[in-house]
């Protein structure tokens, strides 16, 4: 069982601005992406309250609902969520404890970065850490002051389009995804021909998908499936020069550090989102 009361108690004991301790947030490693977890997710991306996650980016003038909105009904299509000055553009899917997120945030201070994680306590850890870092660092001391980074609990294999509109993202990271070695579990993999269409939907043309793993087979699987997808093309060699986030990804995730300590190999691949073909 996750979070027995004393663990929870200890989590709550910390002072504002104090960093959360990982040991109080550990959770069993594997979650089934197919079962109906008690997930919360917005009906549609417009219903998502991003203000809770990026309070510094809430627009000061509240959005007015157009009176003559032809779609507005009694139930309303005004979801009552604050308007934001920026949208999330970078997503770390299966972000774990968020190492990559916190390394990226100061390097892209103008960009909203979001981790998506299916495990509840791991998500909470990342959220707490973001809050603590915001208290500890002002935008003057660290670019962006960690105001541009947050994390939500989500099963991305099912609910990505509930959070992001078409072409909203410029980057997706898939770092050390669960390998699902077993042959019959391939539909459980975070990369598949059919799921890649959903990544293509949320990533804008010219945007990139980054993958990294220490399991060679999984690397080959991800490369094969992205290359086989007409919306993606692998980026290699020179074209990767100057892509600073690539370096950050290779060194900053928790799993990546473990692999490094154990002297393992890290397999990296980058793909770009192509334009949709013209209608036939």
């Amino acid at each position, binding site marked *: *069982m*996750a*979070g027995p009361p004393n663990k929870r108690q200890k989590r709550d004991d910390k002072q504002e601005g104090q960093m959360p301790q990982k040991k109080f947030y550990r*959770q069993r*490693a*594997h*979650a*089934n992406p*197919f*079962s*109906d*977890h*008690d997930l*919360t997710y917005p*009906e*549609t*991306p417009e219903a998502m309250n991003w203000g809770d996650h990026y309070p510094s980016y809430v627009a000061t003038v509240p959005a007015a609902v157009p009176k003559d909105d032809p*779609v507005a*009904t009694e*139930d309303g299509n005004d979801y009552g969520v604050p308007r934001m000055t920026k949208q999330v553009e970078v997503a770390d899917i299966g972000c774990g404890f968020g190492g990559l997120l916190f390394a990226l945030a100061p390097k892209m201070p103008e960009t909203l970065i979001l981790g998506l994680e299916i*495990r*509840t*306590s791991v998500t*909470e850890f990342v959220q707490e850490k973001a809050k603590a870092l915001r208290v500890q660092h002002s935008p003057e001391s660290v670019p962006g002051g960690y105001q541009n980074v947050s994390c939500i*609990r989500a099963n991305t294999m*099912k*609910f990505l*389009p509930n959070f992001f509109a*078409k072409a909203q993202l410029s980057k997706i990271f898939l770092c*050390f995804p*669960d*390998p699902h*070695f*077993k*042959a*019959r*579990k391939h*539909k459980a993999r975070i990369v598949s*021909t*059919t*799921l890649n*269409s959903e990544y*293509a939907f949320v990533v804008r043309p010219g945007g990139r998908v980054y993958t990294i793993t*220490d*399991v060679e*087979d999984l690397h080959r*699987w991800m490369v*094969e*499936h992205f290359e*086989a997808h*007409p*919306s993606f093309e692998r980026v290699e060699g020179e074209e990767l020069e100057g892509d600073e986030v690539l370096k950050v990804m290779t060194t900053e995730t928790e799993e990546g550090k*473990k692999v490094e300590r*154990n*002297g*393992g190999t890290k397999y990296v691949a980058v793909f770009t989102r192509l334009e*949709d*073909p013209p*209608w*036939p």
Partner: protein
Amino acid sequence: MTHPFQCIATVQLPGRDEYLAAACGPKVFLVNAGKGEIASEWSASSLTTATSNGNDDAAGTSERPAKKQKTSNAASHAPNIIKLTVSLSQQYIVAVTDDKVIHVFEITGHGELKALSQRCMPKRPCAIQVLPDNATIICADKFGDVYSLPLLPSDAALTQNASPGAEHVDVMKTDEATFKPSATNLTVHTERNRKALEAQMQQKNFSAKKEPLKFEHKLLLGHVSMLTDVVFATRQVDGKQRSHIITADRDEHIRISRAPPQSHVIEGYCLGHSEFVSKLCLIPGTDILVSGGGDSWLGVWDWPSFKLRRKFDIRAAVLDTIRQDAEVSGADKTDTIKKADKDVVVSGLWTAPFANAKGKQETALLVACERRPSLLIIPISRLMLKKDESMTQTRVGHSVLDVTCIGDSVVLSLDTRSAGPGRLQPMKLFQSSGNDKGAVDYERDEEMDAKLKCLTKSSTDAHADDKALDELLYGVANLRKRRGWGDDAGGTQVDPSDTKRDDNGTEAMDVEDDLTVHKP
């Protein structure tokens, strides 16, 4: 007990007689509706049944609980028909049986059913359609994938499938079949992955190779969710036809993809449902898509712009029938009504033409809710309005299983299992001349009723018992999610993603290979 007709469809060749195709258990009947006689009959047999997956070795062990055994038991009976559809050309009938087999029939000049092919899909199909090209079948399955198959398999493929019972086919994605999991302790560097590998090594079938499907097929698209319906939608843009595949899933999504060869492009989503979507219905001659499911309203969408035009409330209408039922049975009303929200389960959406007062043809939407003894009739002109909720509610006394239009008659298939006659109820729709001028009225179509009498004789019965019938006819309510396992936000309670329960979920997933609803 009389076995109801679980699916009905119309075959309407121009210049020829009209036929009604009706499925009763494992049988398909084709009735000449002009002559009022049964033209032909076909029955699925367990001989053609392919086992759900190639490796049955573990059947009955703890790894393969109830569901698996049920499938094997079912196989000893003739498989039931679960879907029935007719090609636009009116030349072919496609039927799906609950052993996952797609059957294609040709309808010959005299209304004979000529079985052309039987193809066993890897997962249970939940929606099927013959595309307007009269050459392609699209099939959506319980695992979330949509495949296309040629309506008529090539000769080579046919011979391979010729021997009955030899279709032991499983996953069809050839790319997956070539993936050899060769991870060893050397290639796994983290504790997490090592544990995962160990756990997965211990399971049987670790490297079980999948036999790819022996017939031609393409994977068009997929959701990581159970699919419930699929429709093919075409519209003109700049003088050119653009075709789309619209899919609905149990996780409240309606997805609009391009049709093949560009089915990898998702154009958008119609989002707004807060419960599962079970049915989609395109309104002919418009860009309107109607969706229904576990919400107490119908979604009226302008699908090319993905916009929800309105939510059309049907709660009151359904409540009405519940209240009346409660009065009859003397049950506690408040209690039944409290449950009502959960009881709104849209199980069928159809369109039917009717003549308005000026004799012009209009369209009505017909709505069936699971286990509710009535049919809602809503003129499309009302569906498009912003506020008007008025509709006609026909109390047909039994739940409506399927609807088809034949000539100017609307035929309802009813679950009259205990009442006996009246399994098919033909009626005529017309514009109301009463107070509510816009509404649609109906009357029984005695003439068609007489023609269909041949079908409702006991000779068309099939083996049935209540439980098996309920399972065959009423699966939609099971799509509803169980919510509230624990207070996640609080985090102090059990996290469902992190408990034994979840392990069971994973097992079930392996056993059934399906995105199954885990029943409480």
